[in-house]
């Protein structure tokens, strides 16, 4: 049971949250402009790294707000929580 620090409500059990998968996959501005492969890349292809993963969570049974997190897929340690729409804090912009 992860302990996830909701930016609005504070640390809460993982059971209160829903997982939203990989973060920073922006929906294309004009999906029509993409070919099938590029669209598949947006829709299905994932980095799925072994290590630090930038991912989305939503505090489903709390404030219902989405946010991003950096979490290790090896140790499950959460090293950062940051708002939707902001860049990964561990990478230079």
């Amino acid at each position, binding site marked *: *049971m*992860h302990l996830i620090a909701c930016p609005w409500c504070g640390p809460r059990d*993982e*059971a209160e949250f*829903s*997982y939203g*998968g*990989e973060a920073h996959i922006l929906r294309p501005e004009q999906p029509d402009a993409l070919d*099938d*492969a590029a*669209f*598949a*890349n947006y*829709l*299905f*292809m*994932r*980095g*799925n*790294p*072994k290590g630090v*993963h930038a*991912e989305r969570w939503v505090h489903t049974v709390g404030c219902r707000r989405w946010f991003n997190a950096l*979490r290790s*897929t*090896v*140790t*499950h340690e959460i090293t950062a929580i940051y708002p939707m729409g902001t860049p990964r804090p561990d990478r230079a912009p």
Partner: protein
Amino acid sequence: MKYSLLGLIKGAGNHHKDWPAAWRQPEPKPAYDVVIIGGGGHGLATAYFLAKEHGVTNVAVVEKGWIGGGNTGRNTTIVRSNYLWDESAHLYEKSLKLWEGLSQELNFNTMFSQRGVMNLAHNLHDLRELNRRVSAIRLNGIDSEFLTTEQVKAFCPIINTAPTIRYPVLGASLQRRGGTARHDAVAWGFARAADRLGVDILQNCEVTGIRREGIRVTGVETTRGFIGARKIGSVAAGHSSVIAAMAGLRLPIESHPLQALVSEPVKPVLDTVVMSGAVHVYVSQSDKGELVIGAGIDAYNSYAQRGTLQVIEEQMAALIELFPMFSRMRLMRQWAGIVDVCPDASPIMARTPVEGFYINCGWGTGGFKATPGSGWVFAHTIAQDRPHELNAAFTLERFSSGALIDEHGAAAVAH
């Protein structure tokens, strides 16, 4: 040395001192025709069928730990072929047919026990889906039958079929040819048989990179040095994305923990496999007497082979709903495997844009049953450089074209 009762009797006379190693522990050769990454059941089966069916014997299986240590040794050992779509049904049925002769084929008792797999229906929607499945499965020439609530009770008397429970049992499908097998034995049996055909099994040999010249692979970097290869097959469930990334590919895969557990062993009490999608249970009893129970998948990406206690708690509640008498049984051991989850809950067994690099992944929660079939078609794909008709639909391209094979309903766990 052939395994037989006679051999055991002879062995009894000399403290079993003559049994040779089941497989060699060779040093890596500089190069192989084919390198299989991943010494799980699927990888070892691929190597075996490459050698046996296609005469490709200059093969190495490289395994970062010990063979059968990944999902092969962590699953709930269920074997069945009751899939909805034709593509899946034919693939899993091929696999089931191979299971039926596997112990003899490998001269290794894989303890494939056709004790039946029963999928319960708990609401009208389940019943409709079940009729749809059973009808399709039967027309595909695969055994499947419908059981009424009374027949469910007769077939498995300990299920709570009271109409008053939260999700009463309204019926079930039954595949009598389905069942369970001894998971470790499958890896060991394929390893021993492949070894005898000349395949090198290289344990403690972790792949750290894939070398390419242009768009063609030339070999793998490993913790035991570079190993050249004309063709590379990645069969590294759980870590498929990691291996694919070494070849410069992204996959439609997420890795998740899938938990399972066993109870303490008790005398026989459950003689079939019971699966319920609506109540989220799948349970059987092993030959040792343990209840083997599959729990749900943890929602988050992980490579850690550990899950959340809550998943187990929910699993227990579901189990007790269907089997109230199990409440006083005890959890003896829990663990997790790392499963590759594909968006359509169907695997990928295909060539890739990288020449000589083939990928076999995305089995989600259901890979064990496919072990021999997967190896059989993947060996064909690698040897012939084109898919067998049985895996022709299981491509990477389907994610671009949209021709998915949506088997979400086939798994007892929600993805």
